């Protein structure tokens, strides 16, 4: 059965995040007044934090995951800050040890007496929001392909890498070029299956998101249909989690959301990174 390889330090898996950093990412995201770039950066920082926690034992961080974050906008390349700007994927222990800065966030919580209390929480930041330039998606897909191909060559029996692409607009490239670049990413494989490519389109509108569709019938335009076509089918594990979060899904659901809002972004990252528990 594909996508069932055991994940351990000798045989990690990989997550590669492609983040659209074009100028329009500075516009507000649906559902909140925040910029799309900020909502996406928060969601990525929270996920990196969760992956670090998941990998931490008493003696330190175990390298169950190799991480890549590639931004595309005015430039295309590694987008984790500080010392974490290598051309290849970085092990999660290096992510843990290279926090860019720690932010104090205030959140409202139930005070248990019918009121609201403010609570300060620390938030580790690795990835900063950027919104500048156009949408060179093909170049980003090609950088992802190079990284996952190197990973698959090094770990030929590992759970295959998962590439999560977050974008808010049409690519600069022609449709056929995007399709070819995405196909080249998905063509990389280990003995446990092909690399998975999931796409999230974030919107500044308050239109209803189309989440994890199993056909392109409800999609509004050819751009949405292109992203649908380039998205892999969700693994059974991801379908189960999406169902538990209340999404209507089937075994043929694609890892694709159109018109996503702030909540959808976090859930997309959770659902998209479902893998067997590391040992």
């Amino acid at each position, binding site marked *: 059965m594909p996508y069932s390889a*055991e994940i*351990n330090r*000798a045989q990690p898996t990989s997550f590669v995040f492609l983040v659209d950093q074009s100028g329009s990412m500075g516009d507000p995201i649906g559902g909140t007044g925040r910029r799309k770039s900020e909502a996406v950066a928060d969601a990525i920082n929270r996920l990196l934090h969760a992956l*670090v*926690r*998941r990998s*931490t*034992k*008493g003696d*330190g*961080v175990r390298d169950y995951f190799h991480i890549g974050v590639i931004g595309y906008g005015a430039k295309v390349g590694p987008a984790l800050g500080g010392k974490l700007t290598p051309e290849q994927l970085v092990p999660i222990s290096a992510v*843990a*040890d290279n*926090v860019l800065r720690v932010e104090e966030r205030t959140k409202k919580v139930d005070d248990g007496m019918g009121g609201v209390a403010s609570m300060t929480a620390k938030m*580790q930041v690795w990835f900063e929001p950027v919104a500048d330039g156009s949408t060179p998606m093909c170049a980003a897909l090609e950088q992802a392909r190079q990284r996952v191909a190197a990973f698959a060559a090094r770990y030929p029996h590992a759970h295959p890498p998962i590439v999560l692409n977050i974008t808010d607009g049409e690519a600069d490239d022609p449709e056929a070029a995007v399709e070819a670049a995405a196909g080249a990413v998905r063509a990389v494989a280990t003995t446990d299956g092909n690399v998975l490519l999931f796409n999230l389109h974030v919107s500044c509108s308050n239109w209803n998101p189309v989440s994890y569709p199993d056909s392109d019938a409800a999609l509004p335009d050819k751009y949405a249909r292109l992203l649908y076509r380039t998205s892999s089918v969700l693994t059974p594990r991801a379908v189960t989690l999406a169902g538990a979060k209340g999404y209507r899904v089937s075994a043929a659901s694609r890892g694709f959301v159109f018109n996503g809002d702030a909540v959808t972004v976090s859930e997309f990252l959770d659902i998209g990174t479902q893998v067997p*528990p*590391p*040992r």
Partner: protein
Amino acid sequence: MPTRSATFWVPKRGHAPEEYEDAAAAVDGAGRYAVADGAAESAFARPWAEALVRAFVALPPARTAWGEWLPGAQTAWADAVGTGPRPWYVEEKVEEGAFATFAGLVIDDDGWRAFAVGDACVFQFRAGALASAFPVEHAADFGTVPKLLNSRAAPARAEADADATPGDRLPGDCFLLATDALAQWVLRRHEAGAGPWVELEPALTGDGPFAEWVSARRAAGAMKNDDVTLIVVHT
């Protein structure tokens, strides 16, 4: 009421013995036995599993309430973990506490009582046949998210999550305490109509055969690759 016990353990395939995160403790004189399985995603899970089983078997037979022994286990864990300075990610996990499943058994003249949180199990065999299974009764009921004992939560939380059962006993009955991988195997074999005890018993002589026996079942896909811990109690 004489009992005699033997303990067996094998780490996960591909893992060193020092990475084993289960624990077992047995005191034949007091008729008290316990196994625990430290959750893979916690930090300092092995000291927690060890603290649990040691604290449980250290009490006299009549004392079994969670409030009587769990706080001592939590203190022992905190002592074993110590204090910083530590990297931020380790500190976060220490604050969250470690997690483990647990099964404890007390055998006395009146019968037996078992206590469990999660999917560590106690089995009673009579004349080689499975007579009771606790707390999990069907192989399909081993989920991926068992209930867990936390090294920082109040005993009332354990009380709420725990299962307990009494049982009677005849001379010659045999009890197994097993963490989940072996426990699931026992129930699968039982459900398939095969006698798990008949298959297991020859592996329980000395140190070598049990590890080989487990390896063979992992290789055949009959047992999941996980730490395996077993206490066999003969009465």
